[in-house]
Each structure stands twice: as C-alpha cells, then as structure tokens.
C-alpha cells in the first residue's frame, strides 16, 4: 500500500441540510493518495449524501470540501443512456473528458463486457450495468474515486474483478471512498473505515490492526443503535 500524507480530499466541518432536516452533520475528514476509506452505517445515515457532497454534486450548507484531483464516481444510478450501446456511452464520456478514443474499448475488455460492446444497454443485466458504470468512472483515470455500493448487483466473478481493480487503484496512489454495506468483501482493500450514524462520522480509524470480526461487530452495534 502506498498511503501518503498527500490529501486529495479534505472535508472540513461539512454539514448539509434538506429543508429542516440535517442529512450530514459536521463531518471533517481527509483522504490521501493511496487511501481507501470505507463508509459504513445503516440506511439513511448520510453515506450517499456525503459521497455526493465530496463529488461536488450538492453544495454543503456549512463547511467546505476541497478536491485536489479529478473525480470519478459510481452512484446508485448508472448515469448512462439506455438508448445507446455500451461503446457509445463510453465514447461520449471519452469525448467530454478528451481522452484517447481507444480507451473505452480497453476498459470494456477489462470489465468483461467485450462481447456486449455494441449492445444497447437497455438490454443489460444489473451486474453488466454496474460494470459499465465502473468503467465509466475510470475512463479518465481519476485520482479520486467515489463509489456508492460498487458491488451491488455483481456476481462473485464480477465482485472479484472490481475488488482487484480497487487494489490496483489503491496501489497506484488513488484516493478512494466507498459507501457500502458489503463490508466483509471490501475490508481487505480498505485502509481506513468511517462509521456513520445519524449524518455524523462517529469514528474514522485505520483498518490495520483490527480483525474483520471487530469491524463487523462495531458495524452491527451501530445498526442496532440506529434502530
């Protein structure tokens, strides 16, 4: 692992309110190059909102977020166009980012979608869409990657491909933030873990030195507190 003290994401006292309800409360954190931060917590604890805030898709009500590199994101929604083929979707994103036109084919091969390259994505399964959404996020080789439930809809083989890819990105010095409920599958990739409850990051600690059992128990305790 190559975690360095070069922070690519700096969130300072970030809060976000919708109407009268605070969705994210006073979150301060940094994610440096080579770090993979797992955000875990129950439903409605602000994980997805924090990812959207870090991406710059919503503006914080209070506090500030600095992004010091280009961002790639995988969200709940694929951000893809159903009427276009897999290749057309990635070629469009490649044009927007001004990347090499050969890159979409390279990534589609990497994500195991070579056979479906000219297939309209309206016919894709959930797992294929998820792999394509990940390819979309990686197209411009961002140094900051934000992933919301990246293993959702993937079978074992698909999950292994994605976990392998995340290990590679971590070792190449990307800063990765992952919101997930699939803690066990992603724990080996993570360098840090952030526990979310009621919009707050109640704990942000390194994974090193903790075994999976401890982490899972803490996660379960938080879920029970939330209920």
């Amino acid at each position, binding site marked *: 692992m190559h975690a360095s003290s070069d922070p690519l994401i700096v969130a300072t006292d970030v809060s976000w309110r919708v109407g009268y309800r605070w969705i994210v409360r006073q979150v301060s954190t940094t994610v440096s190059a080579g770090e993979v931060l797992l955000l875990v917590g129950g439903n409605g604890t602000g994980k997805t909102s924090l990812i959207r805030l870090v991406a710059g*898709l919503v503006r914080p009500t209070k506090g500030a977020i600095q992004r010091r590199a280009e961002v790639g994101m995988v969200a709940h*929604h694929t*951000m893809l*166009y159903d009427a276009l083929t897999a290749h057309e979707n990635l070629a469009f994103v490649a044009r*927007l980012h001004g990347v090499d036109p050969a890159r979409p084919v390279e990534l589609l091969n990497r994500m195991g979608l070579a056979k479906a390259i000219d297939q309209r994505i309206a016919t894709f399964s959930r797992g294929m869409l998820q792999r394509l959404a990940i390819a979309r996020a990686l197209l411009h080789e961002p140094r900051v990657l934000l992933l919301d439930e990246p293993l959702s809809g993937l079978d074992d083989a698909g999950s292994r491909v994605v976990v392998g890819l995340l290990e590679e990105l971590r070792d190449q010095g990307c800063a990765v933030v992952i919101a997930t409920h699939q803690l066990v599958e992603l724990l080996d990739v993570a360098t840090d873990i952030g526990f979310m409850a009621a919009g707050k990051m109640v704990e942000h600690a390194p994974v090193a030195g903790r075994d999976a059992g401890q982490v899972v128990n803490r996660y379960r305790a938080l879920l029970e507190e939330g209920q």
Partner: protein
Amino acid sequence: MTWRGAVAIARKDLAIEWRTKTAFMSSLVFAVLVLAVLFFARDATAVSAFDMAPGVLWVTFTFAGMLGLNRAFLVERENRSLDGLRLSPATPTAIFLGKVAGNIVFVGVVELVSLPLFVLFYDVAIWRQVPLLIGVIAMATVAFVAVGTLLSAMVVRTRFSEVMLPVLLLPFLVPPIVSAVQLTWRILADRPLAEMTGWLSLLGSFDIVFFILSLLLFDAIITE
C-alpha cells in the same frame, strides 16, 4: 472545452433521438394534426386560408416544438445522467449550448417537414420570400429554444414536467411568437421590408436578451 463539450452533448442527444424517434414522431404527428384540423375548422366563406395562415404556422411550430423540448432533459433524468455531465469537465455553459444546439436541430427538422405541409394546406406562395421567411423562423426558433431549454432543465425534477413546461414557457413566448406572426403575415403579403423592421428589432432583442439570461441562469438551475 466548451465547444467540444457542447458538440458532444448535441451529438449524443441527436443520436438518442435518431434511435428512438419518440419525440420526433409525436411532434410531427401533432404538427400535421394541427395544420389539418385548423384548416378544416374554418368557415371558408368568412375567413380566407391566407388570413389564418401566419397564426396557424406559429401555433403549429410552437406546440409541436414544445413536445420535443421536454425530451432534452428527460433523457438526463432517466439514470441521473445529468450528474454524469456535471462530474465531467463540461461546463454549465457547454451543457446549455449542447442542449440548445440539439433542440434547435430537432425543432428545425420538425419545422422543415411541417413547412411544405403548411404551404400545401394553406396554398400560400412563399417561394419568392423563402430566405426572409427562413430567417424569421430561425430567429423565433432560437428565442423559443433558449428559454424552453432553460425551463425544461428547471421542471425536469418535478413530477409533472410535461405539464409544467408549457405553463411556464408560454408566457415568455408571447413577444417572440407575436413578432413572428406579424412578420410572417407581412412576408406572405409581400410587404416592404421597412414595415418589418420594428418587429424584427423586437424579435432580435428578445433573442439576445433571453439567450444571454438563460445562459447565465443555467448554472444555478442545474445545481442542487
């Protein structure tokens, strides 16, 4: 980047429309219906087709075009693709210009197909005045599409965007559509250009002011 992004977005929107043809077919069927219904609804002994023609032409273009304007941002709502655009280096200006360009091509094609049908139904001689008429259509289309694109971005997050767009858009369209109707009447009646300068100025001013305003407001509209 602005131009490259705008061109990529317009190309993508037109590719999606070319493949699905849903908005184009609905707009075209609507245009043919309006032209036919209004033609047969008039009392031929009381109102000549010529007197009705300019109004019918702009009612057809406005409502048929409006059907397509919603589509521009509905495709971005489908899988929250607008988030993807906002995460890309495409600036809000590029997104707006791309959407406007795509909409102008879309509305332009609907107008291009409707115009010969209009000539056929209303038996108006436009051939001597084609460049001037095309110029007026282009000016009114730019005004219509610029404001329509901004408002369709605004209403797309609402539950009844298809209903909301005409409600919000039509009041803004009164000045350009009235100007376009007046200009079309004068063009079809072969009136001298001097009689049209006032309306042309109004239409031109609306184009400039509303295009710039829409461009400036677009960033605030698409930001949550």
